[in-house]
């Protein structure tokens, strides 16, 4: 089986549930537009419907068909995206990450401050910071709406809020998808571009 690139997204229950799912969909759609095989799915292992509980969304990207059909958690994520910086303090977000992984965080805080909260930061090769909340507007905790909260068919208005700038930031540290393909997949095209422009990559 070919190498499978695993992405895990951490977000807050209910309030960021839709944007977290949209982020996983945008990254998958962007990679699929570039001719990759992809999987994107929602949390199954976490508590999904309690407000602000930390929860996960997943992506898999590969050059060949992905045969891990019935494994519904990413055990070895190479890229981790965090939608709310306080999650880092509560959870070992890098659990299972092979050495040399990448982390993208939505935060206004400095890289040193974020790194001081991660006990196993030696696994990281880069830390990317983007103020997605500032770009998307609002507090980052209000859900845009609850449309299609069960996943449903979402292809048109995907990533209107927080997901757009974070997808743009992810394109700077991951070569599995290009910025153009992500822009084409997201509804908030300006947000994706702004996220890619303002994201700060710190190589560790």
């Amino acid at each position, binding site marked *: 089986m070919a190498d499978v690139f695993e992405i895990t997204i951490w977000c807050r229950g209910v309030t960021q549930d839709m944007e977290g799912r949209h982020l996983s969909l945008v990254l998958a759609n962007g990679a699929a537009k570039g001719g990759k095989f992809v999987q994107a799915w929602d949390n199954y292992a*976490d508590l999904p419907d309690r407000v602000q509980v930390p929860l996960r969304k997943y992506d898999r990207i590969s050059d060949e068909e992905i045969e891990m059909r019935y494994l519904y958690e990413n055990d070895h994520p190479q890229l981790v995206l965090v939608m709310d910086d306080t999650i880092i*303090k*509560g959870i*070992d977000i890098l*659990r299972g990450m092979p050495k040399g992984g990448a982390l993208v965080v939505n935060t206004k805080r400095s890289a040193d*401050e974020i790194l001081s909260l991660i006990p196993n930061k030696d696994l990281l090769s880069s830390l990317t910071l983007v103020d997605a909340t500032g770009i998307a507007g609002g507090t980052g905790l209000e859900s845009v709406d609850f449309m299609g909260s069960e996943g449903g068919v979402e292809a048109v208005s995907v990533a209107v809020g927080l997901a757009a700038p974070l997808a743009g930031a992810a394109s700077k540290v991951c070569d599995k998808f290009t910025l153009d393909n992500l822009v084409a997949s997201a509804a908030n095209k300006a947000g994706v571009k702004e996220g890619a422009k303002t994201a700060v990559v710190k190589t560790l």
Partner: protein
Amino acid sequence: MSPLYAEKFRIPKHLEIADGAVVPSPVGEQPMMKTGNWRIERPVIDHEKCTTCLNCFIFCPDGCWHLDPKSEKMVWDAIYCKGCRICVEECPADALRLENELNFKGGVARLDKPY
């Protein structure tokens, strides 16, 4: 019932119930149900304003406030507080305020394997 319990409580043989029915009631903290990692903002108490009316103790759904008998001050539990803000809403003396969790170094309720 285990022999230990039977001896302790001196229950007659014909009144004993099957093994597994008696469980000790949880008296301490629950190590597998740490909910402190849900918290975005934490309540910070101003002991000058606090009147120890115990509203926070009564309203907290997780029992994260208690009155320390020695110092006679309210004490907050960082490991189980979810940051639901109920105590801040209910405080009549305006002694509680919210502050972002990352402004504090301590109070880490990190789970190695969540859930």
